[in-house]
């Protein structure tokens, strides 16, 4: 016999790991069958049990959005140096830093200047960290939901502006951030969409990859965000409904403008 027992066993483990059963492992020699058969059954049991462990669809979706944002943040940082300011705010210490910065700069009118800042702008970190601070100090879940909807609207407006400037990577990043804010709002206790039955979780996009062509991603975000908002509208308290309806209108308009712009750029 040329092949050792460990080699032979390994070949069968390849099959077990890829999902085949012991029955696919036809061992030729009778003495080997007696020796390997019980071990293959143990291997099959181990492989089968461990294969049942899977990430939840909600985690898969959230991780995909986060990864996509990181990917496009890296692209944006690499392609356009000023954009490094955009990702700066995502770091955990941003809120603490911003507190000191906002206090120092408020007297200089920087806050007002930052209101219309874009991700490529110098004052953008001030704008976003001010938003984070407002969220942090707001105790009412209902008001936090209002704020998140407002911020999602801002991200969408920024997305269109960045697409106008030809920065598709940052536009995609902003679309992802707007979608994240919308999902966060919809699943907050103010609206209370659970992951079951709300509709959006079934979108856990196995077919939507983490980072594909910008237009594909924007279309996926548009569909996903609208679906979540529709579900949110059905469950939201009356006070939040006007904000959600307005955001739905804005969302469709901003996404359409951005996608149209990128298509024109791609065609030319």
């Amino acid at each position: 016999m040329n092949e050792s027992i460990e080699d032979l066993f390994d070949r069968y483990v390849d099959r077990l790991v890829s999902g085949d059963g012991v029955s696919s492992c036809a061992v030729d020699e009778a003495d080997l069958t007696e020796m390997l058969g019980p071990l293959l059954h143990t291997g099959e049991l181990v492989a089968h049990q461990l294969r049942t462990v899977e990430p939840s669809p909600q985690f898969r979706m959230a991780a995909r959005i986060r990864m996509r944002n990181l990917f496009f943040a890296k692209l944006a940082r690499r392609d356009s140096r000023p954009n490094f300011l955009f990702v700066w705010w995502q770091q955990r210490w941003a809120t603490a830093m911003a507190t000191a910065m906002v206090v120092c700069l408020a007297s200089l009118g920087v806050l007002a200047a930052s209101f219309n800042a874009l991700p490529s702008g110098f004052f953008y970190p001030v704008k976003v960290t001010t938003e984070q601070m407002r969220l942090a100090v707001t105790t009412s879940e209902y008001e936090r939901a209002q704020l998140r909807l407002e911020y999602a609207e801002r991200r969408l407006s920024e997305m269109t502006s960045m697409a106008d400037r030809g920065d598709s990577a940052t536009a995609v990043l902003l679309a992802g951030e707007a979608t994240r804010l919308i999902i966060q709002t919809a699943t907050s206790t103010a609206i209370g969409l659970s992951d079951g039955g709300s509709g959006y979780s079934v979108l856990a996009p196995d077919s939507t990859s983490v980072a594909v062509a910008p237009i594909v991603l924007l279309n996926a975000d548009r569909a996903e965000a609208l679906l979540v908002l529709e579900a949110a509208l059905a469950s939201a308290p009356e006070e939040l409904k006007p904000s959600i309806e307005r955001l739905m209108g804005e969302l469709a308009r901003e996404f359409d403008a951005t996608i149209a712009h990128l298509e024109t750029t791609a065609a030319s």
Partner: protein
Amino acid sequence: MGWHVCLIIDILVMSEEQDLVARAARGDADAFSKLYEENFDRVYRYLYVRLGNEAESEDLTQEVFAKVLEVIGSFQWRDVPFASWLFRIAHNKMIDHIRKEKRVERVDSDETVLSLDDPDPADIAEHNLQLEKVRHNIGKLSPAQREVIWLRFGAGLTTTEVASALGKSTGTVKALQYNGIVALRKLMEPAL
């Protein structure tokens, strides 16, 4: 299938993967996406079966891929399969986490996520019980056998990938795998 055919297939698969990794390192979204999708579930599974905690496994899975994105440009091929490199990162992240938390790997998990089509609570409980028995028994193997079984059966790595990830020869990995399953068989015998 002869060994030379396997070798040719391995070379073809590796050269395709090499191209994918090179494109991902240059910022090709499709390539990175493919690597991510192909490996996400198995990295999660590897971490979960090691840690036995859903929240920690989720956090670490995200950290692993964030690290991959950060350092993929510095990935040196040198005949090391991408999966081996990826699981070294996953392993190191997990060790760092365990050290930081100053705790030992859990043999018993407090929660599980199972891919069951039938959401019957009794079925879920039964599956959880079976999974925990398997995890518990794997936890009793020698560290080297355990690592091989996690990577081979949990993460679904090939013997070559496991060998490369652990810095051992394929022969050693095969022996550890064989002896590990023999030991598991004995540990699980009453249940089999």
